[in-house]
């Protein structure tokens, strides 16, 4: 993973204030407790980072780092909901460390709002279910476009040009179609998850 950029302006969240992670684990962060915490929260932290815009590989690395930092700072001592929130705040801090500017923070805020509304209670599982259901409501052509464009099912992911060939559309037509499909999906999941 890329090496860290010193975080000057963004404060690392911490229920146990201190200069940073120390070498000794807290009494409760023994291996079993840590494993349990990781197992419980890993998918949600990873998904949160993906929503923030991290690539899958970057989300893997930042998730790993977030758990190590958060556990060192006592995340295992918190209530489960607080642990989840603390992990997300840590992940956000680490993610923004690699992004500069006020826009990045504002975008992260907007993603946080979406997370609070759609995913804070279940880590985003319900919304993913809703999306799967919404995919079934698309027309055959639109669903085919999404399947090929995103590699759903057993399909390879196609770029816009290849997707256009497959669907008989010019690249601009593919762009328009995909925008329309995404709007449809957005409307559908917002109906299910207002």
């Amino acid at each position, binding site marked *: *993973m890329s090496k860290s950029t010193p975080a000057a302006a963004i404060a690392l969240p911490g229920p146990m204030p201190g200069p940073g992670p120390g*070498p000794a*684990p807290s009494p409760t962060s023994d*291996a*079993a*407790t*840590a*494993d*349990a915490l*990781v*197992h419980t929260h*890993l*998918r949600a932290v*990873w*998904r949160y980072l*993906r*929503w923030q815009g991290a690539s*899958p590989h970057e*989300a*893997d*690395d930042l*998730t*790993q*780092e977030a*758990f*190590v930092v958060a*556990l*060192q700072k006592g995340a295992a001592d918190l209530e489960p909901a607080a642990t989840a929130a603390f992990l997300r705040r840590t992940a956000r801090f680490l993610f923004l460390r690699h992004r500069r500017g*006020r*826009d990045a923070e*504002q*975008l992260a*805020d*907007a*993603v946080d*709002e*979406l997370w609070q509304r*759609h995913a804070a209670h*279940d880590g985003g*599982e*319900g919304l*993913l*279910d809703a*999306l*799967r*259901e919404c*995919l*079934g*409501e698309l027309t055959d052509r639109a669903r085919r476009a*999404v399947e090929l464009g*995103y*590699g*759903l*099912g*057993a399909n390879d*992911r196609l770029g816009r040009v290849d997707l256009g060939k497959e669907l008989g559309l010019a690249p601009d037509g593919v762009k328009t179609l995909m925008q329309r499909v*995404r709007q449809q*999906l*957005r409307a559908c*999941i917002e109906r299910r998850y207002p």
Partner: protein
Amino acid sequence: MRTNDRGEFADRAKELQMDALLHEAAGAVPAADLEGRIAEALRGRARSPTRRGNTWLFAAAALLGIGTVAAVAWLRHGERSALVPAQDPPPAPAPAPTPAPQEPKPAPQDPKPTPPTPPAKPPAKWTTWIADYSENKVRAIDQDGKQVREVADVFGIWDVELLANGNLLLTEFAVCRVREIDGKGKSVWVFEDLKNPYDADRLPNGNTLIADTFGSRVIEVNPKGEVVWKYDKGIRPFDCDRLPNGNTLICNVLEDEVLEVSPAGEIVWRAGKLPIVHDADRLPNGNTLVTLRSKGLVQELDRDGKVVWELGRLKSPSDADRLPNGNTLVAENTRVREFDRDGKEVWRCPAVWAVEANRYAER
């Protein structure tokens, strides 16, 4: 502020969210070894003084025996890994999401794991087949937690049934098909005129009952692939079962209800207010066991729809079965667990995203 409002960021956030969701629906998941990497990083940090010392010793030996350049490289590597193991972890022997080879140990997500209840007498041999949606595979786990069989490349698997002839009936949501495979993995029967099915059962007459979920119908298909019965009146079926009386039990997610439908298509029983009801089974006592995914609940309902038993605090359950011993087997997001009547966990097996689990006595 350069941008004019929060709306622009909100729109961009929604785009990011949709992209991430679609990629995840397409199978993007955290790295399979990520849990192991984190565990290794945590252990590495806790052990860092020792590791650092070992590295220095090794570096000294290298300086003596191998040469300065190699030694410096090792030294630098050792210092870095000792100081920031989380950023540059070694490839870890990840605890793969497969069951322990010997006895079914409690999975690590329970802070105070409940050990499996020792049976009063030697248990009957059984195997639990698990459909793991995220992994695109089905696995058979024996009562000792040992994996005894695996079938991979089953795309968007939502259901697996072990048939009387030893074959498997697989429901593949993502590629819109139900197929029967033999012991060598060869397809011996396929039905594909479907739109993202969730469930299929082989019936005693040799036909197959399929919840064609996004085709909005439940169909019975004979071995020739002919649809010989269907029910398609305003449903989105997540699960269907043919009952001993010939009726069909259907989970209709469109109306948050479970229906019992006669062969003539008449609704003869209904239980409502069951949001995202993923599974329903009619029990021998006439009650109905329902799985409410979004609520994290499994409930036993009597004929009046009254809750007479409940299992809560589950993690996105998709399937629950009442076992012959009275326990309940539940497929949850990251595990399959068996609970006794008092709600005490007596067995578990980790999974990435278990969507169906069925237990079979050894034949």
